């Protein structure tokens, strides 16, 4: 496949920290509308990969193209986000002093320039959308609570909600179900499946039940590069993957 047809194109991306190679010539293609699960041992470089895509970390070498043309390595975080790349962080980070509602309002897709936000008023559509997201995340009763007073799991949900509110073309979701009950995990899987198709999604998770539920192509990362790729069943059977990741 050529770079032009991809939504996200990573080629030969390397990052090192004080000599430690966190990403080692990583290559990865995501098609428009595709959902991809990424698994791999702790420290394999999954989060670092997201950092590199979203502009948080500059790669030492390698190409990263969005929609086949935009070179992400030259851009700053906000610019990348505005291209339509949204992210949920591994450690939930929300605006603790804002209410749940305001967190979503800030994330909501809308013009991002200062003067526009100065004169912004919540439209009916926006209100409906936020209500919708509050329902999905079951945070409706806590809409007026300060996000800082949410429990760990609730913050996870809020982050997912914010990601939905952003309505990005590509969603990077780092460990969305960590700290969720099994039922919530299922719900999250459904949610992501709904989103995929219209949007592209990259999900990182260690919960194999969840990954299985997603039923999508899986990429296994190890020591900063791709170890295996294919269906979950296929990679699960890979001896190397069992050795470094799944265990017995």
């Amino acid at each position: 496949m050529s770079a032009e047809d991809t939504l996200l194109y990573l080629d030969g991306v390397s990052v090192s920290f004080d000599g430690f190679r966190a990403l080692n010539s990583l290559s990865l293609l995501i098609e428009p509308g595709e959902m991809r699960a990424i698994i791999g041992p702790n420290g394999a470089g999954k989060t670092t990969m997201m950092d590199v895509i979203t502009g948080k970390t500059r790669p030492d070498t390698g190409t990263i193209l969005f929609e086949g043309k935009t070179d992400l390595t030259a851009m700053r975080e906000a610019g990348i986000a505005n291209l339509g790349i949204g992210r949920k962080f591994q450690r939930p980070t929300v605006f603790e002093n804002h209410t749940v509602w305001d967190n979503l309002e800030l994330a909501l897709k809308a013009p991002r320039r200062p003067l526009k936000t100065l004169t912004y008023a919540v439209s009916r559509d926006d209100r409906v959308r936020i209500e919708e997201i509050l329902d999905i995340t079951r945070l409706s009763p806590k809409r007026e609570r300060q996000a800082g007073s949410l429990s760990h799991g609730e913050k996870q949900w809020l982050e997912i909600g914010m990601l939905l509110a952003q309505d990005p073309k590509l969603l990077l979701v780092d460990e969305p179900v960590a700290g969720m009950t099994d039922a919530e995990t299922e719900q999250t899987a459904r949610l992501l499946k709904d989103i995929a198709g219209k949007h592209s999604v990259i999900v990182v998770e260690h919960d194999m039940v969840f990954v299985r539920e997603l039923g999508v192509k899986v990429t296994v990362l190890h020591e900063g590069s791709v170890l295996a790729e294919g269906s979950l069943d296929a990679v699960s059977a890979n001896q190397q993957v069992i050795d470094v990741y799944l265990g017995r």
Partner: protein
Amino acid sequence: MLTRFLLLGLDKKAGVLLAVLALLAVAVPVMALGTAPDSAWHLSTHTVALLGKYLCFALLALALDLVWGYVGILSLGHAAFFTLGGYAMGMYLMRQIGPRGVYGNPILPDFMVFLNWKELPWYWHGFDQFWFAAIMVVLVPGALAFAFGWFAFRSRVTGVYLSIITQALTFALMLAFFRNDMGFGGNNGLTDFKEILGFDIQAASTRVGLFVATVVALAIGYVLASSIVASKLGKVLVAVRDAESRVRFLGYETERYKLFAWTLSACMAGVAGALYVPQVGIINPSEFSPASSIEAVIWVAVGGRGTLAGAILGAVLVNFGKSYFTAALPELWLFALGGLFVLVTLFLPKGILGLAAQLRQRLPSRGAVAAKPADQKGV
């Protein structure tokens, strides 16, 4: 759209504050000019000047609270903008002295004459016009803040690093203005003003006029600031304060937001300085001293950071305390004031205005019940 925007900021607290300011704007002129000097209701020029000074400081505190309370930029150099505004006004006032200076030079201020300057430096031109000076009052601090912020925010200087370079900025300005070669009167600064817009600067009516102008400026500043804070832009600012990098990942260019608030704040500080100078009668480089900026931070902290009204309250209270103690306890007032600061931090962690909120939280009231886990019904 503009009215809607401005109305945003007008909650109950704002109503009270604006009412107090309106009262001041009416009562002070009446009491100062309309009563006999021996009447119990009379306000002396001393009191009017004091009140005016407090309110100028309040405007500075307000400006500072906007960036510190809402954007998290702890500026230890805000006095720089205040003082620059003050100098711009001071230059206008100097030019108004005309030939009434001690050497009778119609163009050159006295300090230039006795330091043997032969002509007015270029940057003094235009300041004989009020409109020009008025523009400079906002433009100079604004431009400096813009340039400074442009570089600092783009370079992602944050936290104490930003604080310290703001301090370096004001310190450098102080040293520069101390230099007689700069042409701003060196350590003595600018003083001995005669008139403003043709009015005798010492006349009681002029003083009252300046006071009213200050009240109006403060009111405008407050409405502006609280509207901004209540808008979505304000929410972005607070988000920047709490988790700047997270805001970037939502697609906001945080530099622009900071720059906006920072520059606006500097302009407000400049206006405060400009109103301050004719009322206290002198502007000199020690206003640039880092301690002045820190004091402004203290006012905000005492009143309650991130409350706007608290900044105003803090500035007035602390300065009133200073005026009072320096006369009542001239040798012990530092204990009183220093002790006050310590006590406020210990017992009013959110400042004076925070006290109310704190009390509300302590006593479980109806609002608090709503937050109980009980309403956390599953779907």
